[in-house]
């Protein structure tokens, strides 16, 4: 049972462009929605996270948009750089599932110079 669905599977963007990754969740009790960035041969690292009391959170070039009623959230990477080329995972958790992270399948982002 996949609790978090992520799309697209991969995307290619030109340097300076915007990358958008979407996720949808099922469990309405989830209250923590992080995005992880993973480079080849490395473990996932927390990039940015949001809680449902806000609809948007921005950190540098990375923005999470959150739509509670639609049970969807997305990651926007502005001014994409070649160093942003990585796999991005959305995840969700909450007290109801003892804060265990449920991950999406991942999106491989390639930024062309």
């Amino acid at each position, binding site marked *: 049972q996949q609790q978090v669905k992520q799309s697209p599977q991969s995307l290619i963007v030109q340097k300076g462009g915007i990358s958008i990754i979407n996720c949808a969740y099922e469990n309405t009790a989830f209250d923590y929605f992080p995005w992880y960035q993973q480079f080849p041969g490395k473990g996932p690292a927390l990039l940015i996270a949001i809680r449902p009391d806000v609809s948007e959170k921005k950190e540098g070039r990375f923005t999470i948009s959150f739509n509670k009623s639609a049970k969807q959230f997305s990651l926007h990477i502005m001014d994409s750089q070649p160093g942003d080329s990585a796999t991005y995972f959305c995840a969700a958790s909450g007290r109801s599932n*003892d804060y265990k992270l449920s991950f999406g399948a991942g999106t491989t982002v390639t930024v062309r110079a």
Partner: protein
Amino acid sequence: EAGVAQSPRYKIIEKRQSVAFWCNPISGHATLYWYQQILGQGPKLLIQFQNNGVVDDSQLPKDRFSAERLKGVDSTLKIQPAKLEDSAVYLCASSLRRETEAFFGQGTRLTVV
């Protein structure tokens, strides 16, 4: 601050053999997780420890997988006997408490041939 340490980085074994992975979490982190990441998928939680007690092992194939966390610090994950479908990256993560950010190690890439 040292990160989560895992060893070995890579392991190739034949099916039906046994293998063990080791994890040293960040000092002071009470919660420790083992995840399985199959190529092209998001990490899947295998087992969660709180100090040296198991919180959740519902996704652990207990007929072949075992894990322990002695003295609430280091942890080992064992597979015996291994199957071809066990080929994956095994990630260890730790967090200060269950509801705080999880930090991942670099993982152990297991190939079963």
